[in-house]
């Protein structure tokens, strides 16, 4: 009797909080009006074309690039990144892996792309953004399964978990400042608790995403770099350990969730 009452009380509390959450999402109507017509598809199309376009000193396409599931396998690859790659002896996310393939397979000079991996607003999307949109779209509906079998993959996760709480800069911000609590928002923007599976699932499964405010597809590395900017930190280096570790931390927590990227965000 006591127990059932206790359970009932919990159910009531949970039910209420779920309701409150639904009421709070005042942008639900707005987002619903987009249907499944995200401009991200335009970038996916460009990325698909780019994937099979010959480039670089060796004048070959990226079609033999190994994204973790074997040379040339695109379907499902994004749902299993970041992961450890023997040839590079590193944990790599999709974006660093793509640069690796451009350099090693195509003999492409990637200095400019490394320096400016993300397009400026109003300028064409970079190769990296186009390819990311395309490759992510080919994992749609597949369960996220970011591996934790190699010691370096475990290390990246543990490091990311710690970095999530790293407070620094003139504002004392860490990732946890905004993304460490349930049900909070900044202005009207709902915040996900990213050190929990629920929040990580919702977030990780929807990057890359078409950012409405910028009219561009943005990648998860961009999200990390832009968080660092808003944290008032110096520039986050593309493909750095800080970025990859945090992405791994998010991805592993999100394991099991179906990929649904590119997403659509404010």
């Amino acid at each position, binding site marked *: 009797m006591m127990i059932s009452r206790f359970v009932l009380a919990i159910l009531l509390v949970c039910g209420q909080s779920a309701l409150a959450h639904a009421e709070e999402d005042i942008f639900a109507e707005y987002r619903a009006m987009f249907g499944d017509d995200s401009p991200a598809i335009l970038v996916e199309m460009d990325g698909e074309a780019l994937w099979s376009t010959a480039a670089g000193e060796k004048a070959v396409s990226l079609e033999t690039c190994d994204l973790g599931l074997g040379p040339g396998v695109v379907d499902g690859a994004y749902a299993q990144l970041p992961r450890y790659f023997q040839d590079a002896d590193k944990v790599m996310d999709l974006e660093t892996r793509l640069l690796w393939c451009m350099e090693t397979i195509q003999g492409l000079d990637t200095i400019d792309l490394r320096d400016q991996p993300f397009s400026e607003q109003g300028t064409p999307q970079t190769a990296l953004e186009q390819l990311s949109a395309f490759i992510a779209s080919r994992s749609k509906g597949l369960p996220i399964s970011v591996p934790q079998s190699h010691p370096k993959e475990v290390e990246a996760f543990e490091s990311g978990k710690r970095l999530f709480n790293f407070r620094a800069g003139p504002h004392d911000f860490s990732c946890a400042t905004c993304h460490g609590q349930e049900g909070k928002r*900044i202005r009207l923007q709902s915040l996900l608790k990213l050190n929990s599976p629920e929040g990580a699932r919702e977030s990780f499964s929807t990057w890359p995403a078409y950012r409405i405010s910028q009219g561009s597809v943005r990648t998860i590395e961009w999200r990390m770099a832009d968080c660092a900017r808003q944290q008032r930190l110096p520039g986050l280096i593309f493909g750095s350990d800080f970025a990859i570790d945090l992405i791994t931390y998010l991805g592993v927590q999100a394991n099991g969730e179906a990929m649904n990227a590119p997403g659509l965000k404010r």
Partner: protein
Amino acid sequence: MSLDRRHFLSVSASMIGALVAGVALPFRLLAQQARPEAGFAATDLASAYAALGGNPEPSNDIVFTSPEIAENGAVVPVSVVSNIAGTTKISILVEKNPNPLTAVFYIAEGTEPSIQTRVKVAQTCNLYAVVEANGKLFSASRETKVTLGGCGG
């Protein structure tokens, strides 16, 4: 070609002559002739209306949808469905934009008087759908709130 008659009436007489004569004119030329430049240049609702042909009469036969509150004013989905017989033209106006007139759609015969698109809304204000049918103008309006999301930086 069964495009809206009214649209063609604004084309110069010589061009109509050419059309009647069956001379294939590039469509673009016609479109440019028809563009309501004064409407797009207007900086307030009243002068945009004037350029479209006058003040519309509010009508419940237009189903105009825009979100009550937009997460980002740069992209606001809008939907217009006209239940007014003989609808030939649908315009969308955003009252407080620098230039309220945003888009004009010419509905050909056989095309449903129903349009969905996405527009920029600079600040919280009324959005208007103006429908032209049988030479008369009708309108419906909706307020969309534009808010600040995110960190503001």
